[in-house]
């Protein structure tokens, strides 16, 4: 949930204007331009990898994840790439099979929360007045109430809370963040010329929202969706880990639940709990990277020169506020050389930057 912090301003009323400029200027074809961003590409790659795993998992898993065998608590080997559990179950198969559950819950929860978030956020931002007060008050309340404990007590009281139930509970509690950001953006979009113009020409409110406002919110909705999926994956895995959801449904959290309960830590069976955690982290990182891509797309100031950081360093350019780098290129060397006594005694700036770099 940290990835979208930047979209959020301290005061929702002065939403970041330049972001709207960007999105407003977006042409339909360029809407997913952020995918050209390297970070987003890597993230997307990771997501696709797990997506494929979720689909074909049952066909490629080497064993039945619940099948017990004689190979008890074996470290990784050719037969069991990721070792076995205390009952001889194959950890790799558990992780492969578990992927589907994680992704399905993540996507359902993400979709559900996004739909609610868009409904609440856009309506609040567009309506203004009392309706806005009530709706944004509601989303702020949901933001302040700690979600995970809420999910835990709800899931803990639902008899046999399966994947979909958990996804719905997560969606019902996790929409507020997106709604808040969307409300702020809608508020500033509403005052834009093209929306005013549409309103003046007598277009209906739903049409304005669908045709004029929503297209300009695409990037933010996408960011909110990805953020919620991250949160949903973490929540679901956590719920499984503490044993709130049925421990027989395989997902990465269930693997960790058994590992913790069967003292894998004390027995030094690292292969049992390290891979599942890495998978969660990898999936989470992939989603976060996608969000970075979207963030940089929304807020051009963040677009880091970082991509070229190495090449910049090679050229001894250090982008800084308040100290414009001076790099003399051959073609623009002054035509009129200064008289000899005006030659600066200090080293030329390029070398100087290099010296400073070394001092650091």
């Amino acid at each position, binding site marked *: 949930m940290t990835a979208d*912090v*930047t979209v959020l301003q301290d005061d929702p009323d002065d939403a970041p204007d330049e972001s709207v400029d960007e999105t407003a200027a977006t042409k339909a074809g360029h809407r997913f331009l952020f995918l050209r961003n390297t970070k987003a590409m890597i993230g997307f790659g990771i997501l696709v990898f797990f997506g494929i795993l979720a689909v074909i998992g049952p066909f490629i898993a080497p064993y039945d994840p619940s099948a017990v065998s004689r190979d008890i608590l074996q470290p990784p080997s050719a037969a069991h790439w990721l070792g076995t559990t205390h009952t001889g179950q194959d950890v790799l198969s558990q992780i492969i099979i578990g992927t589907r559950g994680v992704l399905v819950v993540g996507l359902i929860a993400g979709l559900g929360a996004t739909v609610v978030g868009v409904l609440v956020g856009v309506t609040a931002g567009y309506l203004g007045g009392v309706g806005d007060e009530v709706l944004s008050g509601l989303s702020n309340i949901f933001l302040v109430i700690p979600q995970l404990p809420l999910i835990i007590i709800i899931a*803990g009281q639902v008899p046999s809370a399966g994947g979909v139930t958990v996804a719905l509970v997560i969606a019902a509690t996790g929409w507020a963040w997106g709604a808040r950001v969307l409300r702020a953006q809608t508020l500033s979009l509403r005052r834009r010329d093209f929306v005013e113009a549409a309103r003046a020409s007598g277009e209906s409110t739903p049409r304005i929202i669908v045709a004029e406002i929503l297209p300009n919110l695409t990037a933010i909705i996408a960011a909110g969706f990805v953020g919620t999926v991250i949160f949903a994956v973490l929540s679901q895995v956590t719920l499984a880990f503490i044993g709130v959801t049925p421990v027989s449904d395989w997902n990465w959290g269930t693997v960790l639940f058994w590992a913790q309960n069967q003292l894998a830590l004390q027995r030094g069976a*690292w292969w049992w709990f390290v891979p599942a955690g890495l998978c969660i982290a990898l999936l989470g990182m992939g989603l976060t990277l996608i969000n970075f891509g979207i*963030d940089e797309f929304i807020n051009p100031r963040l677009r880091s020169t970082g991509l070229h950081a190495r090449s910049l360093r090679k050229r001894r350019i250090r982008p800084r506020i308040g100290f414009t780098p001076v790099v003399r290129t051959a073609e623009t060397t002054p035509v009129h050389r200064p008289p000899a006594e005006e030659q600066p005694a200090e080293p030329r700036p390029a070398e100087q930057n290099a010296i400073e770099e070394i001092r650091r």
Partner: protein
Amino acid sequence: MSFFRRRIIFYLITAWAAVTINFLIPRLMPGDPVTALIARNQGRIDSDAEQSLRVLFGLDSNQSFLEQYIDYWGLLFRGDLGLSFTFFPTPVSDIVWQSLPWTVGLVGIATVIAFVLGTLVGTAIGWRRGTWADGLLPISTFFSAVPYFWLGLIAITVFAVQLGWFPSNGSYDRSLLPSFDLEFLGSVLYYGFLPALTVVLASIAGWILGMRNMMVTVSSEDYVTVAQAKGLPERKVMFGYAARNAILPQISSFALSLGFIVGGTLIMEMVFSYQGIGYVLYQAVNTHDYPLMQGVFLVITLSVLVANILADFVYAALDPRTRQEG
């Protein structure tokens, strides 16, 4: 309306909402687990306590919804959260009061440390864009995606099981009697170190990334360039002008993410069997102790609310614009 009046009204409404949610959840759930629990403990529960449980879980079907709601508030004002079944017959409020200080101590301190450290590191990275410091970003991204509890598992494996430097669970040496002497406090610190470290490691990345982005955004404001034009020392520009403004949204997002962080860190208590409120929640969930679950949730929510109010005070102290009327 002044900033504070608005906020106070908001918090009152939120507190009311939290209590109401707590009131509604058991009434909306299918099934009636508590009647069974009461039946099983028949004869051991005194009639007052049984009446409290009936009010808390809406077992008196001959009462109207409104009457139930009013009675519920009445119980809360008396601090009566019912009886715990796991720790029968201890009142829920007693258990909560015993475990809350541990959580505030561990989670509170660790969260504040993570926030302060993360903000400092984020300041440095955001200020020196395009240097080696950017290399910290991928690492932070990875850590921000790791589930808290898994980091706890790794920490236990490495530092408690393999290296044996720290205990793997508990919150103080059981052979000591709780008191305020040096030995006991030392033991508390020793037992708390590993959980605290994991909380810091798990949550710091978010602060680093958030502050870095805010620094980058704020650095392109005119007043930062003006500060450089004035020839102020680098540190003054970086902290007084850039970071001083970048921290404002960081604090509001601190307030907003508190619920999320607290949720994650409570799980950490479960992993370390640390006797805070998160561990109590864990026990309650695993033993289907519904009164305890409800009570813990209420207290967690109200604590987060209090933390939010504190964050608001800090924000108002740092931003002169909020202190104005309007």
